[in-house]
């Protein structure tokens, strides 16, 4: 009787949750008590592409470490993860390890962030990778990986067209390359020079904007986070970039999404360039292994100051829940330390997760993908500039910047209006915080 009633309630709950669109989310709190002997570490992963690899890592760790059980749950990227995490926190089941994306979450989840500065891996973190998560003498998260944003290009097509990618360091050179590719379209067998997915707010509002705003904040996420206003010093360069990229892109740009850009166009060799970042490699590889071998990444050209500098930064940190008991906290730190410092763990990070590590002590020659290799050589040549989009005002990229660019490209408003509106939106967003 009780059982069936419970089931009924549950199905009604599920049904109503699906129906109740505009209704609020309230918590059904339930207390969780872990068993006394084994410490369970609840790892809430945001990178879905790491799902299987992290599960395997946890399994290996659980086998060799008695008394600890690391349980990985993976939830989709971006907003979905944050929504799910909030719901988890409301229900009183805050995960022991969860992901942070920037200063905003540092603020929002303040009471859930423990100091991990005693972690073994933290001492090996590369310079600059901890800046965002430092709070006084405390460190509030493990940097997960370094990512680079730039223009991913097809080396084979570039070679055929006679373009030297290393020379594309100025806006003029970029425009020339687009022009050349466009002129030789039929000869090269491509549909267009590049593909620009303007439907994705994060591609235009975060990634495209980043190199052009980075100089204003000296490449510091924290500075960006504390900026009350922006002044768009590079607005003219940015206009050139948007104009050229949309002109020579496969059309229609307004409804093009990420998968059309990467899976349908770039991975099949129908376009020679795509503005993305190091993370696209596994996707391209899954479509065409051979094509994926001959790709590279170059910086989005801005001006002379940034010429040849690739925007690189940590885009995600793993935090350890402060509300968990000390034993679980320690177990969580131990697992992350194992992943980033032990021989086994490091091997997983390099060859399975295939990321550019944020820690010293890695054998960089083992980085297998060409984009990671390119990014790593920029890093070791010290030719990088900081990624700042993690410090943008809440919601600014999505609703303050991206729509303005879409309006400009659709011819609904002038460039100056778009820029002015985006400045105003930043100011309002900051005032509301």
């Amino acid at each position, binding site marked *: 009787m009780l059982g069936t*009633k419970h089931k*009924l*309630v549950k199905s*009604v*709950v599920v049904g*109503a*949750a699906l129906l*109740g*669109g*505009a*209704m*609020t*989310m*309230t918590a*059904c709190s339930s207390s969780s008590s872990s068993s006394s002997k084994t410490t369970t570490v609840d790892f809430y992963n945001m990178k879905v592409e790491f799902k299987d690899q992290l599960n395997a890592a946890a399994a290996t760790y659980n086998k060799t470490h008695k008394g600890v059980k690391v349980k990985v749950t993976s939830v989709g990227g971006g*907003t979905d993860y*944050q*929504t799910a995490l*909030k719901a988890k*926190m*409301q229900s009183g089941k805050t995960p022991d390890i969860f992901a942070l994306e920037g200063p*905003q979450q540092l603020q*929002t*989840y*303040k*009471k859930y962030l423990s100091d991990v500065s005693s972690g073994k891996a933290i001492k090996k973190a590369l310079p600059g990778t901890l800046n965002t998560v430092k709070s006084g003498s405390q460190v509030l998260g493990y940097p997960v990986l370094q990512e680079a944003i730039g223009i991913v290009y097809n080396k084979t097509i570039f070679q055929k067209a006679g373009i030297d990618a290393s020379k594309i360091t100025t806006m003029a050179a970029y425009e020339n390359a687009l022009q050349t590719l466009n002129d030789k379209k039929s000869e090269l067998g491509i549909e267009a020079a590049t593909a620009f997915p*303007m*439907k994705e*707010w994060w591609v235009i509002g975060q990634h495209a904007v980043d190199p052009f705003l980075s100089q204003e904040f000296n490449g510091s996420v924290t500075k960006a986070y504390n900026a009350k206003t922006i002044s768009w010093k590079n607005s003219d360069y940015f206009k050139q970039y948007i104009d050229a990229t949309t002109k020579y892109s496969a*059309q*229609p*740009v*307004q*409804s093009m999404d990420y998968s*059309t850009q990467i899976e349908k166009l770039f991975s099949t060799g129908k376009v020679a360039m795509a503005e993305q970042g190091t993370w696209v490699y596994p996707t391209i590889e899954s479509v065409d292994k051979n094509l994926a071998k001959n790709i590279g990444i170059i910086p989005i050209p801005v001006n002379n100051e940034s010429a040849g500098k690739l925007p690189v930064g940590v885009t995600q940190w793993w935090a350890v829940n402060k509300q968990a008991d000390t034993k679980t906290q320690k177990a969580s730190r131990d697992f992350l330390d194992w992943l980033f410092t032990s021989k086994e763990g490091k091997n997983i990070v390099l060859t399975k997760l295939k990321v550019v590590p944020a820690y010293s002590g890695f054998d960089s020659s083992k980085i297998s993908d060409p984009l990671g290799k390119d990014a790593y050589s920029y890093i070791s040549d010290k030719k990088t500039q900081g990624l700042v989009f993690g410090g943008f005002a*809440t*919601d600014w990229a*999505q*609703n303050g910047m*991206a*729509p*303005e660019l*879409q*309006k400009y490209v*659709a011819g*609904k408003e002038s460039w100056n209006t778009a820029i002015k509106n985006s400045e105003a939106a930043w100011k309002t967003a900051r005032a*509301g915080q």
Partner: protein
Amino acid sequence: MSKKKTWFYLFSAPVLIALFLVVLLPFFYGIFYSFTNWDGVSQSAFVGISNYINALKDPTYLASLWFTIKFSVIAIVLINVIGLGLAVLVTNKFKGANILRTIFFMPNLIGGLILGFIWQFIFVEAFSAFGKLTGIPGLGSWLATTNTGFWALVIVMVWQYSGYIMVIYISYLQGIDQSLLEAADLDGATAMQKFWQIKFPLIMPGFTVSLFMTLSNCFKLYDQNLSLTAGGPYNSTQMVAMNIYNTAFSMNKMGFAQAKAVIFFVFVAIISLTQVYLTSRKEIEA
């Protein structure tokens, strides 16, 4: 209390408890939060009615509200006209009427999100391929402009919902007393006369139900909106539900979003209740 009443309460208790827990309680919680600046995680402070004032001053909210109203008016009319048309068609006796019923109803069995993604493929890939083949311009960028995005939403909504509404109209059409129609036949009424003079007035209760259902569903639409256009380009095809969701989860303004939701609730409630009142006055007993 009589034994019958005890059983009544016992059996309806699970539903009532569930309803209380997942609809009523969150609803009142929501009203409470709409007066705070809650961000979804940390403690919140009471901010009076400023959320409501800001919501009514928020241009994106008002734009999405206006877009939703435009969408709903057109979608409701089309769904009901087509739904009724299909119902009249399949209640005629001909071969394959039953199969047609099933086919018309089928789109409604597919979830909104999946349906949206399927149609996104049709609009983006199939339309542009067809456009290239025939040389008709504009078919290639169906989801890229505000106007075509709007019609894409209407088309998908109508396609999904007409079959469902058809089922409701069928039940009312079949409930009509056959003797009335036979009498009309004897008096020499034409098919048109029979429809407008007899069937139409008698299925008035069907209108009350169908209009109410389409109205509330069109206004609350979220999943097709997300999967088809995601609000783009430049948030010009963003409907109210999406505006509220984004306020809550990408802007982290849970309290503000809640105030928007309450305003939206009152708005939809007033319209639906007015509609039910007006159409039920027109209902007649046969």
